[in-house]
């Protein structure tokens, strides 16, 4: 077990809890806006850690770049989707929780 593999595995295991936390937020938060908030941030941190971890572990630069591309694509997708959903929800008169 080389040092790279250790670092990679640790990153992967560090990333997984963020994804669980995102789901926890999805289930427990009270309205669309807070759920968006939980998912858009937490899940993507988790995914980023897993992608970088696996890339480091594989020891191949091409694979690492591909994994980072996957992460960036998911970041773009979730950021845009979160913005669009929140805007439309507001325009449709969905009131944020506690207001």
């Amino acid at each position: 077990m080389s040092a790279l593999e250790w670092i990679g595995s640790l990153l992967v295991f560090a990333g997984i809890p963020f994804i669980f936390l995102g789901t926890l937020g999805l289930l427990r938060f009270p309205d669309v806006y807070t759920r968006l908030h939980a998912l858009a941030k937490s899940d993507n941190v988790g995914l980023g850690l897993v992608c970088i971890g696996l890339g480091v572990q594989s020891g191949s630069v091409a694979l690492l770049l591909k994994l980072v591309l996957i992460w960036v694509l998911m970041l773009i997708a979730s950021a845009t989707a979160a913005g669009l959903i929140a805007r439309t929800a507001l325009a449709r008169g969905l009131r944020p929780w506690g207001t």
Partner: protein
Amino acid sequence: MALVVLAFDLLLAAALIWLAWQATRAADLFHAVVSFIVFGLLMALAWVRLEAPDVALAEAAIGAGATGALLLSALDRLARRPRRHAPLYEPGTAWGFWLPAGSALLAMLTLAAWNLPAPGLGNEILASLSASGVEHAVTAVLLNFRALDTLLEIGVLLLAAVVIWALGQAPPPLVPSMPSPALPALGRLLFPIFVLVAAYLLWRGSHGPGGAFPAGAVFGAGGILMLLAGARPWIRSSEHGPWRLILSLGMAVLLAAGVAGTLSGQDFFQYPKGTAASFILVLEVAAGLSIALLIFALYLRGKPREHGSWGAAE
């Protein structure tokens, strides 16, 4: 370890059955459609588990992208209808009938499936793979050994597009209740990546999972995204001569390749010795382009309009 794999399979199967149930029985239509989209997502995981990466790739590209977009867009036509309290299901189809009937059918199907002979063409494919011009078995089957299937498949896609065009003009899309500046930016940012990934998948097809179908589907999904982002579709009734040509390009080239084999005294779709690789490359590019445009054409739900408002941004 085997236990973990078994638990994974069981959980996946349970989730798939639950989602299928939701997709057919959920009280509201949007719930059903989202269940079906997630069903497709988990199905892709099942394909991965069953060692079918080609199918997983196609399911991811077509199931997650094009089918989801089609269904969600169809909701805009159907969603405006007033709420009615009509029964969701046929009356008189009681559980007393469906439960025993379903169990009986299930038992018979399982029995039949157990007794099916296992297909065993793997060795034959491996034996003739070197002559096919590509290194990946699925691509070899699709574009060499069983190219007739692929020809007819593109024929079906073309037919579907023709039927949809024959239904009349495409309905004008709805204007979103809150246009966002992020949407056109998303289109501009992602479309080049769509094209890049499509080209990459096409190139991968000769030696790994990939090929014309996922590539075409990804390219077509990119087109749909551009349309949603407010771009005007370039297929115009008055001036879409070249686009009509590309729509039928895949069919035409495949047919030409097949007939060329016959004319030169060989079997239908038998390529001249040694040139199979280049033949397949040409076919893949033509089929990929056609599939991309056909999927885009399917999404339009009608013959493209000559003028008038199209995208959300207008």
